[in-house]
């Protein structure tokens, strides 16, 4: 017995410390892996952001050629609506291209970059863990903190690159005299640091939530809160905002006062916040299990409610929360915008009477000032509804690629019934959301005593815009049925509409045909033009044809599961 055990002892496993194995082992390989995996994604983000900086600068530069135009813009930025859309208003008394860029652009650049940062961090930490891809990686010679550190390092890297290139692009587009390099850097670096703060917040929340979607949602909610805090602080005092503003990481970028009176120290707040958040994330990460979270997942029902019967009921349970939150969020936003309408009218009226040159910009008729502004708001609101329609019309594709369509269709459910259920719930949602958006605007105006335009004209606007929203829905549904890989083209159509709607009139020699592709081109201008029955019926017919195409195509094609 004893002799059989006398085999040579296996070599003792090398002590982890002996080969420098720490919780960070493998970070460098992971960094390279992330950069390789996301090379297209990160490049696209970088190019888009840099282009946006350059474009915004160039557009403001063009505007400054018109005497008084920037002054008028500055005056707008003093109004509540301006503060909501812009910033703390540094330099509005002497509104230069740079001041306008920093005041109005900062919050949007922080928004865009923060979305990138949040998605990046969640994608490389929690989502990886959830998909169990990370299990393979962690089973290799990779330390516990390595994936998170690699995500943060790449995050900082891409933000720094974007900040540097954007600063060059801004100064390049605006000229070194108008936009000094130091101020450009002050703005872009401040923005990048704020964005990294939100990335770090996403990292902390990725430790708490077990699911990538949950972590992303919570992070975006924190951003929404930060946005609201900053607005609430700035509304009380302009320029500069109040102490309340400083509780928002967005303010730490705005308060650098780039192009007005540059100061660097507010950025230190971002740096300190980033370090504290990373430290917190590290503590949480060391305490939790792999794959585990700190927010427990709720238990579900053992039996389905009696109402969960058939594809329509299921589509409704899948989409109702998104609809509810969209209605609440957008409804509140447009309601708030509605309450600002009287200010806009009076403010623009004052401007025109003081400075006749303003009339060139806003027209001569004071009664159209507010309606012109309203038209732009309606355009924004409708584009939001179109975005909702596009998301919901793309839901069937997610069902299909995940393989859930397959198990539903293997039951006695026809393809027409299944797609019909998905599309009717999506259509219902789009109609409700459009109504909520338009009437929230009306209600906001009524609450502050603005009775004109009344309920009737708003209803006309709702009716006129609705078919356009349904065209987006039908377009994506038809793509799903005939060319499921191209479903993303729905976003291209929305982007095109946005571009044509806002910048089309500024471009000379734009062929008419370029407008025809935009569904909103056919909708009469809100509150200015009369309701157009032909356009209404025409757009409805286009939507109907697209819906019909969706049903025909979906019945003919293979169900694809990846």
């Amino acid at each position: 017995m004893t002799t059989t055990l006398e085999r040579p002892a296996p070599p003792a496993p090398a002590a982890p410390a002996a080969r420098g194995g720490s919780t960070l082992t493998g970070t460098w390989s992971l960094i390279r892996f992330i950069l390789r995996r996301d090379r297209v994604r990160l490049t696209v983000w970088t190019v888009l952001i840099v282009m946006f900086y350059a474009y915004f600068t160039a557009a403001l530069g063009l505007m400054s050629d018109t005497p008084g135009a920037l002054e008028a813009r500055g005056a707008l930025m003093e109004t509540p609506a301006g503060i909501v859309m812009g910033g703390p208003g540094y330099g509005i008394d002497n509104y230069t291209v740079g001041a306008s860029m920093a005041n109005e652009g900062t919050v949007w650049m922080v928004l865009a970059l923060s979305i990138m940062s949040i998605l990046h961090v969640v994608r490389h930490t929690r989502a990886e863990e959830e998909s169990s891809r990370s299990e393979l990686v962690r089973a290799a010679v990779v330390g516990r903190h390595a994936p998170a550190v690699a995500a943060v390092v790449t995050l900082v890297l891409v933000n720094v690159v974007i900040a540097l290139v954007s600063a060059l692009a801004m100064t390049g587009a605006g000229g070194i005299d108008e936009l000094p390099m130091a101020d450009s850097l002050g703005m872009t670096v401040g923005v990048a640091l704020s964005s990294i703060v939100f990335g770090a917040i996403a990292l902390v929340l990725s430790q708490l939530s077990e699911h990538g979607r949950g972590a992303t949602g919570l992070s975006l909610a924190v951003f929404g809160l930060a946005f609201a805090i900053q607005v609430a602080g700035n509304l009380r005092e302009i320029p500069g905002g109040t102490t309340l503003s400083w509780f928002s990481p967005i303010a730490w970028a705005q308060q650098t006062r780039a192009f007005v009176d540059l100061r660097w120290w507010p950025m230190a707040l971002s740096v300190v916040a980033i370090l504290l958040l990373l430290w917190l994330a590290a503590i949480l990460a060391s305490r939790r299990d792999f794959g585990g979270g700190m927010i427990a997942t709720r238990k579900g029902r053992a039996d389905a409610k009696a109402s969960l019967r058939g594809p329509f009921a299921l589509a409704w349970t899948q989409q109702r929360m998104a609809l509810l939150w969209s209605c609440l969020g957008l409804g509140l936003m447009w309601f708030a915008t509605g309450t600002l309408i009287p200010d806009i009218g009076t403010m623009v009226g004052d401007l025109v009477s003081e400075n006749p040159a303003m009339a060139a910009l806003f027209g001569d008729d004071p009664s159209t000032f507010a309606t012109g502004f309203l038209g732009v708001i309606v355009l924004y609101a409708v584009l939001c509804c179109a975005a909702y329609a596009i998301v919901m019309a793309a839901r069937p594709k997610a069902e299909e690629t995940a393989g859930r369509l397959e198990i539903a269709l293997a039951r006695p459910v026809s393809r027409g019934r299944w797609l019909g259920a998905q599309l009717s719930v999506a259509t219902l949602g789009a109609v409700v959301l459009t109504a909520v958006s338009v009437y929230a605007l009306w209600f906001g105006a009524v609450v502050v005593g603005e009775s004109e335009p009344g309920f009737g004209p708003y209803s006309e606007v709702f009716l006129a815009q609705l078919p356009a929203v349904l065209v987006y829905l039908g377009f994506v549904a038809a793509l799903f049925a005939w060319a499921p890989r191209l479903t993303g083209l729905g976003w291209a159509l929305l982007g095109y509409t946005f571009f044509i709607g806002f910048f089309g009139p500024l471009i000379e020699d734009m062929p008419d045909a370029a407008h025809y592709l935009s569904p909103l081109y056919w909708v009469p201008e809100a509150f200015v033009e009369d309701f157009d029955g032909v356009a209404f019926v025409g757009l409805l017919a286009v939507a109907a044809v697209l819906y019909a195409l969706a049903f025909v195509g979906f019945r003919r094609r293979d169900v694809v599961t990846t």
Partner: protein
Amino acid sequence: MTTTPSGAAAGAPAIEIHDLHKSFGPVKALDGLELAVTHGQVAGFLGPNGAGKSTTIRVLLGLLRKDSGNVRLLGGDPWRDAVALHRRLAYVPGDVSLWPNLSGGEAIDYLTRLRGTVDKRRKAELLERFELDPTKKARTYSKGNRQKVALVAAFMAEVDLLVLDEPTSGLDPLMESVFMDYVREAKDRGTSVLLSSHILSEVEKVCDTVTIIRAGRSVESGTLDQLRHLTRSAVTTVVTGDPAGLAVLPGVHDVQTTTVEEGTRVTFDVDNADIGGVLTALSAMGVHSFTAAPPSLEELFMRHYGDELAQEEAAAKHAADAAEPGARSRAGAR
């Protein structure tokens, strides 16, 4: 059960596929596939990953449109009569994906209600046998548990046909045996079953017939007995005489000899068709002991997918034969 599609006669074959072709762009997934499952039969559908098992099943379910060939399912056309046919069948995919915001119990109820009503007692029994917690949200289930949800939903109702696509790939052996119990129960009720798998022992346990496919073609089909008929038996015998004559008999392969106390131990494979001649020859050599084992499905399988391997082996053996006639090395043995 409820409506019967036109042309569906009782006792019609559950599945009839003839010369089925299906391509995805340049890739030929199915290339003249043949498959038949008669009523009340449990049919194994074997093949390695990527052989076209799931594609075949998706054509049967009307999810994919065939390029050419004949496909009949329960006497109907799987593409045109999909809804009516699906009332009479249940399907379990190999990789089950569920609605993330529904619990397992809700998903089972939803799927069951698409066909009829939920039998609560049956559901409770199935949940208990499969040891599945129905209150967990689908996104927190492991692969095995998602599969159990689909299995429970499939076994909830009595159907004419069960289509199971590698249904046990995420189950542990204990759950696999529960699964086998339910397949047998269904068979006893007269349900036809198509069970696709690449796990041979699974098919061997419950199937009456087996169809083996490779690269989109059926390479062999029949009952387990019929398939064994086509193959060799492995013989081990100890003889007192000289076994040298065995090697030259028709149908005998891989003869190996070892000297033992009782005489000479001989092992070889023999084509089942030629076993008579071998027995005659052996009896002249004075048989001390004799065992003949039917090939396991594993060996059947290896024969189909080890084609290249077998050819290499044969070539190697040939070379060895030429070098050392009479004395066979053990190297070629499987």
